[in-house]
């Protein structure tokens, strides 16, 4: 029993290898392969080829010698990176903001999706869904403007209300803790509605008969959510969590660049904004490439370990 499928496999494999492009299966699928080509080219040209440029992290890059002929300097820029207070602080800030983003931002769309799923009136559900995913389409420049009108010291809506209740104005945007809260909050406000869509899709694939039988067995709403809904969307949650962990070292440039101001830079300067300000403004291409490479490397390690962890629970992505 066990031998037969293996034997069949070995019989077929060399035949297939001989001339796969001549088989009927290949010829039938030529249109599909053709459609694959642009995608492959996209990744080769825009994702893989630029990685060659990473060598400048180990070189003293200058315009004249170009990427390939600039002199090698080994680990010099990584040494600078890990000896300087500023760069260490920036790496730490990046990690700090993205962990907070993950902790608060990740569960939000799940909760929203489950809550929306329980709404019985279709028109209400549709309406709420539209309203909460609308902010996704606003640019960060606009959101930063909204944040400023809400939280500035003079003329900010929140401080005006505080003033009416007799409170002193609070410099929300200029204190590290409140700035971080605003940063995380604005990110959640903007993206949670849109991210909920994928969970809603997963929820619709759960067999309604499960709820019916659970209801007959006397399970309340919360029980049903805990034992049917959550396990039903578990693969989706884990998939998105692994992807989310992979992005842990990235803080979206647009968001942080538009929201930050000099007083909170100590906590708000992240790798992407530093690369922009120092790498491009001051032409420190090699130093900032080293930083970007480090960022990607940590990201890779995190994805692999998150996946390894998930595989232990039979939910691995690859």
């Amino acid at each position, binding site marked *: 029993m066990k031998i037969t499928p293996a034997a069949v496999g070995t019989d077929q494999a060399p035949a297939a290898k001989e001339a796969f492009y001549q088989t009927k299966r290949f010829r039938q699928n030529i249109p599909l392969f053709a459609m694959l080509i642009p995608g492959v080219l996209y990744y080769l040209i825009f994702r893989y080829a630029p990685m060659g440029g990473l060598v400048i992290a180990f070189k*003293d890059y*200058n*315009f*004249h010698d170009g990427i390939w002929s600039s002199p090698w300097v080994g680990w010099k820029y990584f040494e*600078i990176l890990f000896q*300087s*207070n*500023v*760069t260490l602080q920036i790496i730490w800030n990046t990690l700090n903001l993205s962990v907070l983003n993950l902790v608060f931002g990740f569960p939000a769309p799940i909760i929203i999706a489950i809550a929306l799923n329980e709404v019985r009136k279709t028109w209400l559900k549709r309406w709420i869904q539209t309203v909460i995913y609308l902010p996704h389409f606003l640019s960060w420049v606009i959101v930063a403007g909204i944040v*400023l009108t809400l939280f*500035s*010291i*003079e*003329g*900010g809506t929140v401080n005006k209300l505080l003033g009416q209740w007799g409170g002193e*104005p609070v*410099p929300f*945007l*200029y204190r590290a803790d409140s700035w971080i809260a605003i940063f995380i909050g604005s990110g959640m406000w903007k993206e949670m509605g849109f991210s909920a869509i994928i969970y809603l899709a997963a929820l619709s694939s759960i067999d309604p008969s499960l709820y019916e039988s659970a209801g007959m067995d006397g399970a309340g709403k919360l029980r049903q959510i805990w034992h049917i809904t959550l396990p039903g969307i578990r693969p989706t949650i884990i998939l998105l969590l692994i992807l989310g962990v992979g992005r842990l070292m990235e803080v979206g440039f647009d968001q942080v660049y538009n929201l930050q*101001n*000099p*007083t909170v*830079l*100590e906590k708000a*300067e992240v790798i992407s904004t530093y690369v*922009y300000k*120092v790498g*491009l*403004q*001051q*032409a*420190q*291409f090699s*130093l900032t490439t080293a930083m970007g490479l480090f960022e990607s490397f940590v990201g890779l390690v995190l994805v692999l370990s998150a996946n390894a962890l998930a595989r232990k629970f039979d939910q691995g992505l690859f």
Partner: protein
Amino acid sequence: MFGQTFTSRMKFALALGLSAVMAAGVVGCSQAETGTKGKSERKATITVSNYDRGNIPAAEGTVEENRWTKWINERSPVTVKFVPVARAEAVRKLNVMFASGSAPDIVNDYDTGFRNSLYQQKQLLPLDDYLQYAPEYQKLLEKYPQLRKVGTKPDGKLYEIGKINEPHLQSVAFIRMDWLKKLNLEVPRTTDELLDVLRAFVEQDPDGNGKKDTYGTNMSYTSGGMIDSMFGSYGWKLSDDDKIVRTWDNTLESLKFKKTLFEEGLIDKDYLADKNGAKAKQDYLNGKIGVFLPPAITNWFENTVTDIQTLRKVVPEAEIAPMEQPKSPMGQFVHHVVNPVQMTTVINAAAKDPKAAMEYINFIIKPENALILKKGIEGEHWRKGEDGFPKVIDPEKNAKELDWAMDYSMFYSIPENPLLISTTAFDVSDPDQKAGLEMLNKADEFLLNPEAQYPALSHYEHMPSLPSELVVINTNIDKEIQDIYAKGIIGGAQYTAEQAIADAKAAWEKGGGKQIEEFMNTWYKENKEIAFLGKDILELVRSQH
């Protein structure tokens, strides 16, 4: 099977061959075309960077295409394509263009450090062999040897095109005299008096609308530098024993002053959100700011005539006067001055036609062409006044059609053309313009105060450029220190200015600032005789008045 493969291979080979022939044909054609182009009288084409300050009215077009680019291209011996570079992002944008090999042939930028980094990376073309194509600039070099001295790089070759500037202040404070009169106050002479005046401007409702909606002054964007210069807080200064030292004490006083401004609400508390100073300027023009510190004055006529006319549309009784820097606990300083010998322009080493580039520069700096690019067309934008000098016909029309076009001739030496000098632009038969000229003259007099020192070691464009390994250190510490200072201003009672300076000093020590101090002092020892320092600037500028 074999036959099939064979024929398909044949087809393939044929197709390849065909396409190769076609490609060759195309190449052949294009070669023939360029061949004929060269022979005919077609102009060479060059690319030139130009600041995009976002101030061109939509009806006038863009940096690339407007009435002045058309004017230039109709008359210039070369065809010019302008490459817009957003002013605030100029260095970033140009760096990216150089890195990707798409930088323009002529690069116009005021940033000395940036141009030095281009030189160090061998991106600049030595100009000595091409000067013959720009006889106008050759003449200028003979007249002003300083231009050659400053434009020459360590390898002894000339790389930079520059200009002689008029000897005026880089910026000056404008104070609302009508507010002072109304509240029975005097023009402040010291920084303490200034604080008292600012407090009165905020608390005593000088605009008389019954609301507490006025600001004492502004310090968003680079206006904070005006406060630093009251205290001589610049980063570096010469000590009594003739060494270059940090200005910690000066910075402490300046920081205390700024902290007071912030804590007592004498400035807009959201000044950090005003990233380009536009909000402050708007507040000033709406009559809400008592002592306006302009980030920089590039056009005196605009600041002393046009702006005041705008302000008077809102507040008809507004009176403005320039204010001398108040004396601070650290001494009496002047304002920064415009760099008297300023480099602006370099040519890309990869430029295909350096001769055409130099011919273009020569075309722009011909006095008759510069006159049109700076003043507009006679009879349309200006007419000859009784004194024989050009006078603006309609400032509003010029604001719409002309004032944004100054960067096309940014390497032109204004003092070279008597028709262009700032002081002659004012039409003294017009009371507003007469007052404007008086303001300019009064501001110039501040420079002559023999007691006053220059507020910096030198003009920043004449500071030595750090070697690349120190640049990284400097960038990182400077960033850390600036963040600390910002916190020192806003941090309230828990984070005092003294604490901020102590932290900044510690960050300086820890980050390797000593290496930069050593470099500065070695440089000073070796270049003491030729360095162009604050006192030299003052001497030169005073001699021009």
